[in-house]
């Protein structure tokens, strides 16, 4: 494989790290077919994880829109904006590598191909469509929308993390957004905003979290002329299926149905096999078994329908951001007065779930209020706000499994 020099990225392994989503989009267009691997850093990647990312993914070059994003000891190349009308020669197959959310420590990197990423996208060009998304295009859900807009020759209105929701809705309205996508949590915020009167999308799409009946019905009531659909997709499994009948969950008839995506339920957990799944993790760990991806999403069948029932392994999904309970338990357990703790998600109509902690104290302590304050203070210092327990209860004991592990199913 050719090693890169500054302005020739042919065959290079590139880490794409930008402040601006548009720059990331332009760089992706430029680098596909040129670089051998593009690792797309999401906006919240932790700088301390970058050296390990660079090593694991054998990165030659960091491409970015701000020299301050350069990483020590690694070559930095400014984003090279595509020249209008100039199509870069395709000289190699490019791996598109995305980060998973919700990993403790160094994020897992998931390898896709452009073919797999675009497998769910209809080839019809539709320049009368204006996409809008609350997602960041540097994550799977947002990248899907970027690719839909690019392949369909459609317009795309991107979000900006700094922008107020009302301002973004006004901007979407000004540009006449027709297709708008976000998580159920994004949509609940839209429903609570008077500025939702400024948009009139024809297609409302939810994914990334469980879409419950309340949010689907509320969207249908607020946007009566819109088709409201929810999609099942994940960074590893790709786009699985879309549900357009206005109801939560999905029809049991999808299991075993013919089509590019095969679906099965094993021990209550959804598994997918399709050409759209990622091919592997960077650095080895198996992503598939016989081509099947274990999504980690638990489902329950009631009658002719399956309903989502949370995540295997206790992973908590707060507004689309996944949280491993162990990460929070480790912070809580730093307190010298704590014997053990259990962190779990509590269902919530605003963000899907919130984080709740149960704590067993080492000694019968009368100073519970002080300990509670100290634990929460430490959590606030060490964790982003959505990971800090919203509720903390003291309990006398926690269930253990037969193997002596903390029982994650209360």
């Amino acid at each position, binding site marked *: 494989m050719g090693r890169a020099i500054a302005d020739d990225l042919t065959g290079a392994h590139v880490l794409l790290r930008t402040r601006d989503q548009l720059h990331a989009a332009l760089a992706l267009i430029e680098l596909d077919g040129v670089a051998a691997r593009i690792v797309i850093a999401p906006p919240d990647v932790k700088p301390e994880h970058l050296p390990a990312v660079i090593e694991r993914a054998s990165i030659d070059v960091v491409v970015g829109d701000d020299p301050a994003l350069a990483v020590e000891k690694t070559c930095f190349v400014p984003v090279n904006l595509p020249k209008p009308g100039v199509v870069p020669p395709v000289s190699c197959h490019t791996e598109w590598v995305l980060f998973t959310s919700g990993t403790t420590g160094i994020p897992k990197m998931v390898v896709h191909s452009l073919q797999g990423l675009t497998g769910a996208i209809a080839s019809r060009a539709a320049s009368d469509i204006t996409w809008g998304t609350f997602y960041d295009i540097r994550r799977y859900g947002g990248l899907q929308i970027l690719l839909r807009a690019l392949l369909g020759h459609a317009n795309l209105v991107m979000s900006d993390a700094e922008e107020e*929701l*009302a301002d973004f809705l006004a901007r979407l309205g000004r540009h006449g957004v027709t297709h708008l996508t976000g998580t159920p*949590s994004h949509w*609940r*915020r839209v*429903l*609570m*905003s*008077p500025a939702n009167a400024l948009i009139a999308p024809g297609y409302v799409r939810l994914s990334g979290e469980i879409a419950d*009946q*309340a949010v689907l*019905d*509320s969207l249908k*009531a607020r946007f009566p002329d819109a088709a409201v659909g929810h999609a099942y997709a994940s960074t590893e499994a790709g786009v699985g299926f879309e549900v357009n009948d206005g109801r939560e969950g999905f029809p049991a008839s999808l299991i075993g149905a013919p089509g590019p995506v095969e679906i099965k339920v094993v021990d209550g957990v959804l598994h997918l096999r399709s050409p759209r799944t990622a091919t592997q993790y960077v650095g080895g760990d198996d992503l598939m078994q016989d081509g099947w991806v274990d999504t980690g999403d638990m489902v329950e069948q009631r009658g002719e329908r399956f309903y989502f029932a949370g995540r295997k392994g206790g992973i908590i999904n*707060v*507004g689309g951001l996944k949280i491993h309970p162990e990460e929070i338990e480790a912070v809580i357990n730093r307190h010298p007065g704590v014997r053990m703790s259990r962190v779990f998600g*509590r269902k*919530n*109509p*605003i*963000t899907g779930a*919130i984080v709740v902690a149960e704590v067993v104290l080492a000694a019968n302590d009368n100073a519970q209020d002080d300990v509670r304050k100290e634990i*929460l203070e430490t959590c606030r210092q060490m964790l982003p*706000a*959505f990971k800090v327990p*919203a*509720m903390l209860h003291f309990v006398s004991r926690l269930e253990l499994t037969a193997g002596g592990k903390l029982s994650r199913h209360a």
Partner: protein
Amino acid sequence: MSVEAIVRAEFEQVAREQEKTLAGLSDETVLLESGLDSLCFAIIVARLEDQLGVDPFTASEDVYFPVTLGDFIKFYQDAAAA
């Protein structure tokens, strides 16, 4: 305490804990402009469910998301009375 007083107290408590500055809470205050974010509302709704025994977002037949603080309080008053 009245439902309204409980709701208002919870707004102030969560704002303090999450280190948010409340914009002043009149009935006309738009919730998304109150200085609280989605996570704050999520916490408020969970705590009110524990205190009042109702979660009108999940329980109500007419699905509806409140826009102002006045809507929000009435949402809980109606649910608590039902």
